């Protein structure tokens, strides 16, 4: 065999061989478990700790409020939408939720032409300038306190 060819064949085998070895070492073990990605990634992404507790967990202690809420206009609201992230409160009731009361009503109910017509909206300055809760129970908004 001509010396060039021999030398080149040896070099090629060396390069390809070390590439294959490197690939065997450097490819993560869970790769191609489900597809062209690290199978471990699914577990890693899923193992992140949730931040919001979810209304179902509020139900464990506050089922009375939720039962009343379920019969009124705010039945589709989540607790944490108004009260903020309450996971810590759920774990330890002595820690209060982020927001107990507040002016969150306006965030949704301020009249805006982009809001759908079926949605109850008010122009705040024409409606009432005091506190919303004077006339509306927050969990049962059609009821007067």
């Amino acid at each position: 065999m001509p010396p060039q060819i021999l030398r080149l064949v040896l070099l090629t085998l060396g390069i390809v061989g070390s590439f294959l070895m490197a690939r065997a070492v450097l490819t993560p073990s869970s790769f191609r478990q489900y597809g062209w990605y690290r199978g471990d990634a699914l577990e890693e992404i899923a193992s992140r700790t949730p931040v919001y507790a979810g209304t179902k967990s509020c139900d464990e202690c506050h089922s009375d409020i939720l039962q009343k809420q379920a019969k009124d206009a705010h039945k589709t609201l989540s607790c944490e939408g108004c009260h903020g992230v309450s996971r810590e409160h759920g774990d330890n009731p002595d820690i209060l939720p982020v927001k107990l009361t507040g002016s969150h009503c306006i965030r949704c109910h301020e009249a805006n032409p982009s809001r759908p017509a079926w949605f109850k909206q008010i122009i705040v300055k024409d409606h009432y300038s005091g506190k919303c809760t004077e006339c509306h129970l927050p969990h049962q908004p059609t009821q007067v306190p």
Partner: protein
Amino acid sequence: MTPDVTNVLVEVLPKFEGYVYPNEAGPHPLWGFLIVLYPYITGLVAGAFIMASLVRVFKVQALEPVYRLSMLTSFSFLLCATLPLLFHLGHPERCFEIMMTPHLTSPMAIFGFVYAWYLMAVLLLELWFDYRYDLVQWSKTTPGFRGIIYRLFTVGVTDESPAATALDAKLGRFLSVVGIPSAFLLHGYVGFIFGSVKANPWWGNVLMPIIFIMSAIVSGIALCVFNYMVLTWIRRRTIDMRCLDTMAMFLFYALVVDAAIEGLDWIHRIYAAEEGFSVMQTMIREKLFYTLNLGQATVGTLIPLLALGSLQLLRKRVPEMIRKRMIGVSALMILVGVLAMRWNVVIGGQLFSKSLRGVMGYKLEFAGVEGWFMGLILLSLPFVILTTLVKLFLSEQLPATSGHVPQGEGAEQAL
């Protein structure tokens, strides 16, 4: 409006024209100047190689003096081609993943293999076959460290027999033939990266890889013209006008094809006026006006077409001095124009929103990894490498051997 909302308005997104998706509202595009440079550099690599292959494959004897310079140019630019990509990555330390688990549906995934193939199997091998005989001679006659380098590059194959050199020539020619599609692949896949993005109407079209390849060939030939003229000027030698004229001829015809295809892209866009057309018009008018109309079209295409075209018509009637100047200036203009073209493609595609309703801006910064200072360094580096390679492998102090390479105008002028 509650105080909450008003307070927050101060942190509202920077003003853009029209509407852009919130994720597009960043201060600068995702793919910046570094990604403009990468296709530019690989284009020069591919183009310089195609120039060199004109000698070996298409047997254009007139270009013989510039063969080795073109190959070394291609090589020195290829060595720097990965740098813009590495600097751009969010996690360059994971760059090996692209070769370990390449996702074969992605055009970007072939990068590692195409690059390795082109570097080792095409460029280095062809250079080796061309130089092997000389390396053996030089390793015997050159003292010291340089001699060791030459011996290293012979890879231990020191056979000087005519049979061995004949085999060198045959394999070198074979590699030149293989190298042409490899060069097309090396740069064409970059064009395909952009051409395959259907989400972006500026990028995603069928002509993109072809436009990239043609402008690569044009820029590569222009670079070889530039390097040849500079090198002969530094060495105070006379330029081989037959070589220069031939290069100018190929440059002209390549530019004609390039301009025709780019023109076709333009005409089709304007004629079909598809959905994103009006926002792209706005983008061109407001953001790419100078780089497109002045940089790419006028400086990069129109003026060199006229200059080189007139030389093709008038030929030897134009005095040598003027011809040299015209060709040199045209080459420089083309180099600037092709860089402008890469800018227009890469940055232009990110200056309008995918909502097709808004237009963003980009101010190229001086400092930082994506700044133009870094760009200057990355563009100068291949020339530094080329200088070293020329000193090592194209030096006039080296005895002109080249047992198998056909002599052109005489040993002194063979570079």
